[in-house]
């Protein structure tokens, strides 16, 4: 299958599946709906993985740029779609996260299954569209649709407290999408004025000819989206509230948003707006190091389990951002690996923490303790995930952090003194993260016995399966990180070569 047609199929399949559920094909039979969504996701993921590894060499970003131009609509100046390597990896990752969430949803989504499964599939479709499209309008529309889907899911499947957070998150997301649409309109007008067909590809080709002010505007628009999605210091409160009140089954929503933030940052801020990025890279690097330490410290001081987990998530994302700012092949590969590894580890940890909260009927850490003898399986999985989060060898956390640190040293654009100072701060951040994870693990599973009034049960079978699969993936990426890094090397090389020119 051509990249174009396969992309169309891949982006539209979840939408079709979601619509099938939404229009009531399965007559509100929850078991059938759940099984359909689960098996569809499993099939979809396997098929996508097969396609990706089969065609990986042909789907570099450069090849997408050079691929024949498929005109869908003349009104928008024509469009071309296709997954580049980065998009492919992230698409696979998101479909995997959604599959895991569908497995978990069996015992966590007890009502409104029709709405849940259909909207998660719509979300997936919108996400893949954002990853693959090269059209301004489709991109903005998909981004807005994505924000709407996440709003519906968070609003309907979280406790009452999360609804306010969902509102503010939607407001922020829509605000940035509107700003981005305005910026796109400007680029569209300029390209049209110069008789160039207006789309992201041509924007990438001609970005150097645009004036600095417009590029700066665009850079800030994209940076704002990334800052909200990843998230950055100052923009983290809405997503923190969502994490704090989130249902385990919709963990895929905020994790997908992290991934989308990285994708937009790498593709637009780094690749297309490279001239501006080169100026702002040191500032972003310093801010990410600040983020890393700031959130790690907050995570350590926080007594609410899910809130401290949220801070830890933000802290981990900063490592990848830092590595990206090094503008080296190792750094970019490390950042992508860290992004993938972090998503898997964080999903696993979040699921464990949610199960723990369900057992103790609270999210407050001081009221938890001594769970290990009652739930040994949960303790074992949580320990593996904790170790991976810390970065113990033979887990994906170690490989990712190793490459990120190596990328930091191999940068060509900063002086050695700056690199050393940055790396020492990263050392502090990593150590703080490790202390946070081990402290949380100890508080939950050891410590004083708080299991008097709690609903003691070990992992159910489908939960065990989900955590087992996640653990296997984490260990596989830790033992053989080249599964991922080999595919991304060419892409990273392409980006770095732009800066070296």
């Amino acid at each position: 299958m051509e990249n174009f047609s396969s992309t169309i199929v891949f982006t539209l399949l979840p939408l079709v599946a979601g619509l099938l559920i939404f229009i009531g094909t399965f007559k509100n039979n929850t078991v059938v709906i759940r099984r359909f969504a689960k098996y569809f996701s499993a099939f979809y993921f396997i098929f996508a993985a097969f396609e990706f590894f089969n065609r990986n060499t042909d789907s570099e970003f450069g090849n997408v740029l050079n691929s024949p131009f498929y005109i869908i609509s003349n009104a928008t100046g024509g469009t071309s779609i296709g997954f580049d390597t980065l998009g492919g990896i992230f698409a696979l990752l998101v479909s995997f996260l959604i599959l895991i969430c569908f497995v978990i949803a069996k015992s966590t989504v007890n009502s409104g299954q029709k709405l849940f499964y259909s909207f998660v599939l719509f979300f997936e479709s919108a996400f893949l569209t954002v990853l693959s499209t090269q059209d301004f309008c489709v991109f903005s529309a998909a981004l807005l649709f994505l924000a709407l889907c996440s709003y519906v899911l968070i609003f309907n499947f979280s406790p009452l407290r999360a609804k306010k957070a969902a509102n503010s998150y939607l407001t922020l997301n829509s605000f940035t999408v509107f700003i981005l649409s305005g910026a796109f309109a400007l680029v569209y007008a300029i390209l049209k004025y110069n008789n160039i067909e207006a789309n992201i590809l041509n924007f990438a080709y001609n970005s150097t000819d645009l004036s600095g002010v417009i590029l700066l505007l665009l850079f800030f628009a994209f940076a704002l989206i990334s800052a909200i999605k990843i998230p950055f210091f100052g923009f983290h409160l809405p997503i923190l509230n969502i994490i704090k009140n989130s249902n385990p089954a919709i963990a895929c929503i905020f994790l997908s948003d992290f991934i989308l933030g990285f994708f937009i940052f790498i593709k637009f801020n780094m690749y297309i707006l490279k001239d501006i990025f080169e100026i702002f890279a040191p500032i972003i690097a310093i801010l990410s190091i600040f983020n890393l330490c700031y959130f790690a410290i907050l995570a350590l001081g926080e007594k609410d389990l899910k809130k401290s987990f949220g801070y830890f998530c933000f802290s981990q994302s900063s490592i990848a951002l830092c590595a990206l700012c090094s503008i080296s092949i190792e750094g970019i590969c490390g950042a992508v690996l860290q992004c993938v590894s972090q998503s898997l580890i964080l999903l696993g940890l979040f699921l464990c923490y949610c199960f723990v909260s369900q057992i103790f009927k609270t999210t407050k850490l001081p009221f938890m303790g001594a769970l290990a003898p009652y739930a040994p399986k949960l303790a074992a999985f949580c320990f593996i995930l904790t170790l991976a989060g810390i970065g113990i060898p033979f887990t994906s956390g170690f490989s990712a952090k190793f490459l990120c640190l190596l990328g930091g040293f191999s940068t060509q654009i900063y002086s050695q003194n700056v690199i050393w100072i940055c790396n020492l701060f990263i050392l502090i951040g990593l150590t703080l993260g490790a202390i946070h994870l081990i402290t949380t693990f100890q508080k939950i599973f050891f410590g004083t016995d708080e299991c008097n009034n709690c609903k003691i049960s070990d992992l159910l079978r489908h939960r065990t399966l989900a955590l087992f699969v996640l653990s296997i993936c984490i260990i596989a990426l830790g033992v053989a990180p080249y599964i991922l890094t080999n595919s991304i090397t060419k892409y990273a090389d392409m980006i770095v070569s732009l800066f070296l020119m």
Partner: protein
Amino acid sequence: MIDILNLVYIMIFSPLVCAAILMFFKLVPVKPPQYGNFAISLITSIFTFAISLLLFDYCITYNGYTLENNYPICIIQNIPLYFGVYADNLSSIFTLLITFLFLITNIFSYRYLLQNRQGFERFYIYLNFTQFALFCFFISSNLIQSVVFLMILSLVEYLFANFYFQKPISQTNSKKVFEINILADFILLIASIAFLYFSTLTPDTTSIPTLGYNNINSLGLYSFASLNPLIFALICALFIIGAIIKSAQFPFSPKTYLASNAPNPVFSIIISPLMLGLGVFLLFRLYPLLNLTPAIFEILKIAGIMTAIFGSLVALKENSIKNICSWMAVSQTGIAIFALGFKMYDISLFYMLCAGFGIILISFTLNTVCYSTGSQENIKFLGGLREKLPLEAMAFLVGAVSVSGFVFSGFYPRATILGNLFAAKNLIYLTLLLICSFLTAFYLFRLYFRIFEGDYRGTIEPKRVSRAMIFAIIVLILPTVFFGFLFNNYANSIFSPLEYSKLGVSNPFVNVFAFVISALGYYLAYNIYFTKRISSIRNRFLRRLSSEHFYMDIFIDFIFKDFILFIAKIFAFFEKYILGFFCSLPNLITRIISYLTVKFEAKNINSQFFVSALWIALVLILASVFYFKTGVIR
């Protein structure tokens, strides 16, 4: 025919296979009999011991030849990472020590574990996994592999320290141990990655394996030549700081006693030169690199001697057997590091091994005492055990005189260090080391007199010790007595491949003086704790410092907990009130505007009142502008 290389690989992986088998039996419903775990583990230890003997023999026979092999496991961004074997004399000695110690631990621990029957399978799984990780570290062919297995060993130490996870003290302490270890690991990781990158910048990029120990000399020279000297010194300093933390040197010495909640036989491994010497071994391997920046060795000297003296002083005040053992081990490792600080490479190694055998013997002997007295660890409730446990008393004496440097193995390296310091006219350090000898003799004989002499002060009648335990102790006496003599006589054949081998000559005058100083320590302990002719010396200042562990615990708590929590509170305040306010500001403004708009639409606002309010605001703004511009209105 299987060659030695294959045998070495079999030796490395057989404990892992054993751990996997035991794990399998733990997970499946069909359980083997209790001695089954022990038998499988024992057979593995005997097997690995035999191979390590062969390896040692091979290395000594083909003197100067290094057994080397590398197996590429993955390539990350053109950087191949290898799993390999680099068996020179140094690693073959340590391999022999690992297998010997694990064999002894296996023999010793069966009866010990039967005492409370808790975590029987878990113990043997951890034990075999530890052995595998230690093999991988000590026979590692490259720096990356070493750092990876250092991290694994940190995990293992945590698991052992938290073996009895129901005890609150065990949970708290194991967490601290892990935190200290992980800090060291990350420091070493960053230093290794920096060295990896800077060494691959050099023209010799095709060196195989990556950061291999076979090539460390030339890699060091290339890096030294191509790098800013300050950066190079920083890399070396990070290696040294990481190694110091890993080897529990000042101010991270409490790391060892915090791990004392581990099962007793394993605690002996934790305080042995294998676990405490991890950092020192890494420094041995990186010696060619560190040798290029001589100033950096000052850190080792200062950290080493401070640990040696502070460790001894703390051991004087402690009453728990395990704590005394851990401070003794830390103090002796401090002396080895101190010797390394003077670039006495071979003596440092020699000292670590000789003192190590003494420490292991003392530790195992005290384990039998604990076993016999029903886990009584406080020396205040022990005494007069020489009659009940004569062999143990004798073994303890052998260990004590060896570690104090009177005779046996401990004598040779200490005499050489003192001789070299005297020859270099380094009298300050010589005096400090003599003080350390005095203190060592004093606290070891204090321990002896409190446990084995006088009247028994405990409540539980001491029971007989099993034969297996006695056998283990007898076996341990042999190296404690003879190892120093053999090593001293055959040092040339052991050290000849090393460029830095120079044992030096001991000075008879210094030896006699050191003997007298140590004897004074013994004499003082004898008079205070046996004949009781002298009441114990009470220096309030020193007692306070010793009981507070020279504020090392407080320092560790401060950097890992209190300081971070203090900063976290400030950040949380900022997050809640300042950032929270700014985040809600757009929402607030929108609400106010919408409220006013609605009121206007409904004509509910008294327009006269609103206009007046606007006028007042305008006047206020103008007045403030006027004030800031001229400063007239006051």
